[in-house]
C-alpha cells in the first residue's frame, strides 16, 4: 500500500499519513488505513448533512442530501450537523492495541458513531441550544476493539455548535492507535515547551537589557517582538499543554491575530532602528499599512499567519539587503535568517510549526548571535582599552622617568654641584617636582590644565639648568580647571627642546587656547627653526604617545597638525565636540 503523503512528526516516531483513497460500493471515496505502530491517519472524504435527521444519518445509505464537506460554507457556524466518512481497515490490530479517533478543532460538542453504533461523545450534543454542553477542545475517542476489525467501516459524527463563536469545518480528524495519539500529544508538548522557553528567555534578556543599558528603545522593541511570538505560540498551541474547553478556539481566534500583528509591526520596526534606516516615517507607514491590510482581509488565523509571514519576508529581505550594502551590523545574520526560514518552509521542515513562528525564531536566534558577538566585541574593546591605558601609563612613566633622562640630569646635578651648588639644588628641586607630578598623574586619564602647565614648567626649568640657558612657557586663554590627557604638552615641549633647539640655549614656548562652536583648539608655538632631520615626527614615539592619548580620551574627535609658522614652529591640537565624521 502506498500513501499519498507522509509528514514526519519529530522527535517521536509518530508518522502522520494521508491515507489513500478508494471507492466504496456506495460510490463515495473511502479512507484506506493500515494498522501500524507509530502511524496516525488524517481522515478525509467527509460528507456533511445539516440538521438532526437521525434516521437519514444512521443505518441508511447516504443520499443526495449529503454534500462534500469542501463545499460547506458557514461563518460562524451555529447549528447541528451530521458528518460521515468511510474507513477501510486492512489488517488486524494486535491484542493490546485499539483504535482511537482524535477530532481537532471541532466545536462545540459531538457524538461518535462507528458502523452506526454510538461509541463516544464530547460534551452534550443537542438541537436545542439550551441543552448543549460544550465539550473539551481535545478528546481522544476510543473505538471498541470488537468493532474495528479488518474491513469497511462507517464513521459518523453528530456535531452541534451553539455556544462557541468559531467555525469547525477547518478542523481535522485523526485516526490510529490510541497510544500513537497520546505520543503525538507528548511530542507537541515537548516542542512547545522548548520553543516557549527559547522565546521567553530572549524576551527576558532584552527586557533586562532595556532596563540596564543605554540602548533603550531597540531592546524594548525586541522584547515586544519576543512577547508577540510568545503569545502567538502559547495561544496557538495551548491545547497541547492544558486541557481546555472548546471555547478555547474562540479566544485563540481573538488573541492570535493580535499577537501576529504585534510580530508584524515590532520585527520590521526594530530593524529599522537597528540598521538606522533613514526613511523611518515612510517605512513605518508602509509597515502599518501592510499589517492593516493583512488584518482586515484575513479569512482565518492560519491565513493571517501566512499573510504576515509573506509581508515580513518581503520587508525583512529589503531591510537586510539595504543593511548589507550599507554595512550595517546585523544585516548578514538577518539575511541568513530570512533565507534559512524560507528554505525551511519550502522544504517543509517546520515539524508542524507555522511559517511565521519559524521565521521569527530564526530572526531571534540570528539576532541573539549578533548580540553575543557585539557583547564579546565590547568586552574585547574594553580589555584592549584597559591594556592601552596601562600601556600609556607605562609610556608616560618611561618617557618622564626614563633612565637616560635621569642619568643625564644627575650628571648635570654633579656638574652644578662643582660649579655652583645653589643651582644644583634648584635643579634637584625641579627634578623632584617633575617626578612628583608624574607619579601623581601616571594612572589618570585626564588631568587639570593647571597641573599640565606645572609639569611643563618644571621640565623647562630642568632643561634651562642643563643647557645653561633660559626656556620659558607662556599661556593665553587657558582654563586651569579644564581637563586634558596627561603629558600631552609636556611631550610636545620635550620634543621641541630636543629637536628644535640644537644649538640654542634659549627658547620661548607659547600655549594658546581658542574656542569655537566646533570645539577647542590648542596651539603650542615655539620660536625655534624647523626640527632637525630625523627628529621625532608623527612616526616617532613622542607623537605616537600624544596621538594615543588623544584617541583614548577623544575617540574620533581630534586632530593634530604641525609645521613652520612665522618666526617659529607650531603644533595644533583640535578637540571637536562631535566626531570628525559626523556620526
Amino acid at each position, binding site marked *: 500500500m502506498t500513501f499519498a503523503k507522509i509528514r514526519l512528526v519529530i522527535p517521536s516516531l509518530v508518522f502522520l499519513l494521508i491515507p489513500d483513497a478508494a471507492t466504496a460500493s456506495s460510490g463515495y471515496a473511502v479512507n484506506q488505513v493500515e494498522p501500524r505502530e507509530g502511524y496516525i491517519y488524517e481522515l478525509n472524504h467527509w460528507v456533511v448533512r445539516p440538521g438532526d435527521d437521525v434516521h437519514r444519518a444512521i443505518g441508511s445509505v447516504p443520499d443526495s442530501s449529503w454534500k462534500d464537506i469542501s463545499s460547506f460554507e458557514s461563518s460562524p457556524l451555529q447549528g447541528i450537523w451530521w458528518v460521515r466518512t468511510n474507513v477501510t481497515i486492512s489488517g488486524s490490530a494486535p491484542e493490546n492495541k485499539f483504535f482511537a479517533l482524535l477530532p481537532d478543532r471541532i466545536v462545540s460538542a459531538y457524538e461518535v458513531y462507528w458502523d452506526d453504533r454510538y461509541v463516544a461523545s464530547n460534551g452534550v450534543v443537542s438541537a436545542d441550544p439550551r441543552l448543549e454542553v460544550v465539550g473539551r477542545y481535545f478528546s481522544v475517542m476510543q473505538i471498541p476493539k470488537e468493532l474495528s476489525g479488518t474491513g469497511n467501516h462507517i464513521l459518523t459524527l453528530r456535531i452541534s455548535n451553539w455556544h462557541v463563536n468559531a467555525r469547525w469545518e477547518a478542523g481535522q480528524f485523526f485516526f490510529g492507535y490510541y497510544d500513537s495519539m497520546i505520543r503525538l500529544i507528548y511530542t507537541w508538548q515537548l516542542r512547545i515547551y522548548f520553543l516557549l522557553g527559547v522565546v521567553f528567555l530572549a524576551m527576558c534578556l532584552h527586557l533586562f537589557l532595556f532596563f540596564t543599558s543605554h540602548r533603550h528603545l531597540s531592546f524594548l522593541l525586541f522584547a515586544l517582538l519576543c512577547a508577540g511570538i510568545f503569545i502567538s505560540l502559547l495561544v496557538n498551541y495551548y491545547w497541547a499543554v492544558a486541557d481546555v474547553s472548546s471555547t478555547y478556539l474562540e479566544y485563540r481566534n481573538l488573541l492570535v491575530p493580535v499577537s501576529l500583528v504585534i510580530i508584524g509591526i515590532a520585527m520590521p520596526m526594530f530593524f529599522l532602528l537597528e540598521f538606522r534606516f533613514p526613511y523611518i516615517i515612510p517605512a513605518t507607514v508602509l509597515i502599518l499599512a501592510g499589517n492593516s491590510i493583512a488584518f482586515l482581509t484575513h479569512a482565518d488565523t492560519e491565513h493571517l499567519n501566512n499573510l504576515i509571514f509573506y509581508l515580513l519576508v518581503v520587508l525583512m529581505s529589503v531591510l537586510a539587503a539595504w543593511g548589507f550594502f550599507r554595512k550595517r551590523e546585523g544585516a548578514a545574520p538577518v539575511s541568513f535568517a530570512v533565507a534559512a526560514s524560507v528554505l525551511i518552509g519550502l522544504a517543509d521542515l517546520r515539524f508542524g510549526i507555522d511559517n511565521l513562528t519559524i521565521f521569527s525564531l530564526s530572526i531571534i536566534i540570528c539576532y541573539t548571535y549578533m548580540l553575543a558577538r557585539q557583547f564579546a566585541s565590547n568586552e574585547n574593546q574594553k580589555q584592549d582599552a584597559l591594556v592601552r591605558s596601562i600601556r600609556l601609563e607605562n609610556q608616560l612613566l618611561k618617557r618622564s622617568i626614563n*633612565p*637616560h633622562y635621569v*642619568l*643625564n640630569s*644627575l*650628571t*648635570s*646635578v*654633579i*656638574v*652644578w654641584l*662643582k*660649579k655652583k651648588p645653589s643651582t644644583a639644588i634648584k635643579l634637584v628641586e625641579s627634578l623632584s617636582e617633575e617626578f612628583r607630578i608624574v607619579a601623581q598623574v601616571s594612572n589618570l586619564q585626564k588631568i587639570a590644565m593647571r597641573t599640565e602647565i606645572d609639569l611643563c614648567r618644571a621640565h623647562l626649568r630642568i632643561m634651562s*639648568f*642643563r*643647557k*645653561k*640657558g633660559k626656556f620659558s612657557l607662556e599661556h593665553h586663554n587657558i582654563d586651569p580647571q579644564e581637563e586634558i590627557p596627561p603629558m600631552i604638552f609636556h611631550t610636545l615641549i620635550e620634543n621641541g627642546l*630636543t*629637536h628644535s*633647539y*640644537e*644649538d640654542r*640655549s634659549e627658547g620661548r614656548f607659547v600655549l594658546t587656547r581658542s574656542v569655537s562652536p566646533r570645539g577647542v583648539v590648542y596651539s603650542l608655538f615655539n620660536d625655534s627653526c624647523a626640527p*632637525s632631520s*630625523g*627628529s*621625532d615626527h608623527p612616526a616617532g614615539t613622542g607623537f605616537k604617545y600624544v596621538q594615543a592619548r588623544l584617541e583614548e580620551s577623544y575617540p574620533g574627535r581630534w586632530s593634530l597638525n604641525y609645521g613652520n609658522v612665522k618666526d617659529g614652529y607650531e603644533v595644533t591640537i583640535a578637540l571637536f565636540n562631535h566626531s570628525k565624521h559626523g556620526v
Partner: protein
Amino acid sequence: MRVLIVEDEKPIADDLRIVCRRLLREKAESIHIELTYANAMEYLSRRQIDVMLLDLNLSGRDGFELLRHAVSYAFQTIVVSANVDRALEAFEYGVLDFIPKPYNEARIKKALSRLQRSSLRPAPAVKYLSVRKHGTVFVVPVSEVTFIKGADVYAELHLRNGTKELHDKTLNELSRILPDHFFRVHKSYIVDINSVQRFVIHGGGRYTLELHSQEELPVARSKFGELKRRLDDL
C-alpha cells in the same frame, strides 16, 4: 694632544674640558667644545684631532649614526653617555672607551690613559670598521678583512671578496682596537692569522706569509718569532 668634546649640554661640556685639562696638563695642545654634531663635523673638516669625547644623545639624533661616522676618522673616539645599554655595541664599532654618565674624574683618566698605551685593547674587540666613501659612511665587518696594508696616513682594508676599502686610521691606531687574531707582521701589514695558509721561509732572513687568497705578505724579521708561535698555536 688635540681633544674635541661634542656635548649638547654646555655645563657638562665645560666640566669635561676642565677635567681633561687637569688630567692631560701640558699634553693638552687644544681642548675644543662643540654643542652640535654638525658643528663638530665642520670643525673636523678644518682641524685634526687626536681624540673625540662624544655624547651619543645629541639633540635626539641617533647616537649610533653619529658613532659610525666618528669611528671612520683617524682619531680615537671615547663615548660619554647615559645610554649604557649600548656600550657593548659601541665597542664593536671600535670606540676606545665608553664612559657612562654620570662620570667621574677617575673614569675619564682611565679612558685617556688608553690613548697612550697602544698595547691595551679595550674589551670586547671591535667587530666593525667604519669607512667613509663618497660622502657616506658604511661599515665593514672585521670578519671580512683578510689583511690591512698601511697606505701613508690611511689603512687599506683588503676584504675576502677581493675588494679594498680605505680607512682613515693608521695601522698603529687599528692595532689598538682590532681583535687578537689580527697581528702586525710588518710595519706596513696587519694580517688576520686565520687567513694564513702557510708560512714561507725563504732564507737570508726573508719570510713571507701565503694567504688562502694566494696573496703573499712580507713578515718583518722582528716579528718572526712571535708569529711562528701564534701560527703553531692555531
